[in-house]
């Protein structure tokens, strides 16, 4: 049971998460996203085997972003009705403002946790296969993406090598952002030129093995859907309803 989220069908997981995010976008009180965020953590705790240290590392920037949302909403809020709950210098913060600010920052945390839950429990290749098998993604695109994924280490290596070669010629090592951007352009051109060549070779190799981009009649690795997916989707939906209706049960 501990690895249920890892075994969940990736497309189903993807859809469930998307529905949750779009529904949450309609709520502007602090409790809905907070309850939902807590719920996501509980789900993750019971049904996944993720490394929490890694999770925390990935979450760190989102905590920062969440704080950014908090203070900007306080300062730049549109609706400043309601009683003043807080005042710093000459800034009067009303109840509505505070609620909106908390809501948006909890929303950032809820969305980020949800995305991380997906990223940390989903095998990328399985996800692509599932998109093709369950959501009818065109094999041309699916395998096109797959090839890109296989080239990642090769291209990363090339990036480092080009950087080294440029350093030898006395370019690179720029400090400010604008110079760095120009430096990136110099590395980009050889990398893209190489990518054009590699893309043709890879595409030809696939076609030479009879790949035409048409739908496949059978798969070696079948990505299935089952009871587990129904159960987990129900859990997600239950959590969603629970957090959206907190008014009734939280009072």
């Amino acid at each position, binding site marked *: 049971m501990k690895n249920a989220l890892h075994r969940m069908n990736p497309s189903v997981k993807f859809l469930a998460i998307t529905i949750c995010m779009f529904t949450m976008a309609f709520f502007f009180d602090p409790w809905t996203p907070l309850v939902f965020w807590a719920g996501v953590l509980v789900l993750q705790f019971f049904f996944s085997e993720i490394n929490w240290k890694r999770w925390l590392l990935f979450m760190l920037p989102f905590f920062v972003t969440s704080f*950014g949302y908090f203070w900007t909403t306080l300062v730049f809020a549109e609706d400043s009705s309601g009683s003043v709950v807080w005042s710093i210098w000459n800034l009067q913060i009303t109840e509505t403002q505070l609620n909106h600010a908390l809501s948006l920052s909890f929303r950032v945390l809820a969305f980020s946790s949800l*995305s991380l839950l997906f990223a940390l429990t989903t095998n990328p290749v399985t996800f692509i296969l599932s998109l093709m098998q369950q959501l009818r993604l065109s094999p*041309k695109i699916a395998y096109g993406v797959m090839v*890109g994924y296989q080239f990642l280490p090769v291209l990363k290596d090339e990036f480092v090598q080009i950087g080294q070669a440029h350093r030898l010629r006395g370019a690179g090592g720029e400090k400010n952002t604008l110079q760095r951007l120009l430096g990136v352009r110099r590395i980009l051109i050889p990398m893209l030129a190489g990518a054009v060549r590699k893309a043709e070779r890879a595409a030809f190799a696939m076609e030479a093995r009879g790949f035409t981009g048409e739908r496949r009649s059978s798969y070696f690795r079948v990505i299935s859907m089952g009871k587990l997916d129904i159960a987990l989707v129900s859990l997600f939906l239950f959590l969603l309803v629970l957090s959206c209706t907190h008014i009734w049960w939280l009072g």
Partner: protein
Amino acid sequence: MLKSWKLKEIVLMSLFAVVFGIVYLLFLHVGNIWAGFIGPIAYEWIFGIWFIVSIICMYIIRKPGAAVVSETIAAAIEVLLGNAVGPRLILSGIVQGLGAEAVFAATRYKRFDLWVLMLAGVGSSIFSFVYGYFLGGFSVYSTGYVALMLGIRILSGAMIAGIGGKAVADGLLATGSLRGYAISRSKKGEARA
């Protein structure tokens, strides 16, 4: 639509997405974590970098759908590379791609000059902003703040994606490696005419 696409064109988009993915990963995002303190506006000025792939691909391949398909592939690649924002990127990729695609479609895929590319960047900016407005809950912000964010994003889309995209693609064209793609043929045609 996909029938008329050569496999090498699709794989090209995918590898371009990987190249840009590496650049984002190793270069631009390191050390940028703390920018989040400034709030949602912090990333606006650099937002155009996300649209650059779709503009470069459309400028090179010049077939209906090139902007949407490439931006979607780019987002999928980001997910595969382990981007923590994950599934949200796929949807925003489609939305951004549609923004650029709408501009190219309006010219009936006949014009690919600098103005059209900049407009395509603006298209992506606007579409992605509407999407972000909804998901990020920007409606609680004052109109002035929202207008400022949109303004910066449009500028970034036009400059980084439009002008930057054209510069990169023209630089690539000059290397002679794009032989056999629509961009090379059209340049020759222009030269003859």
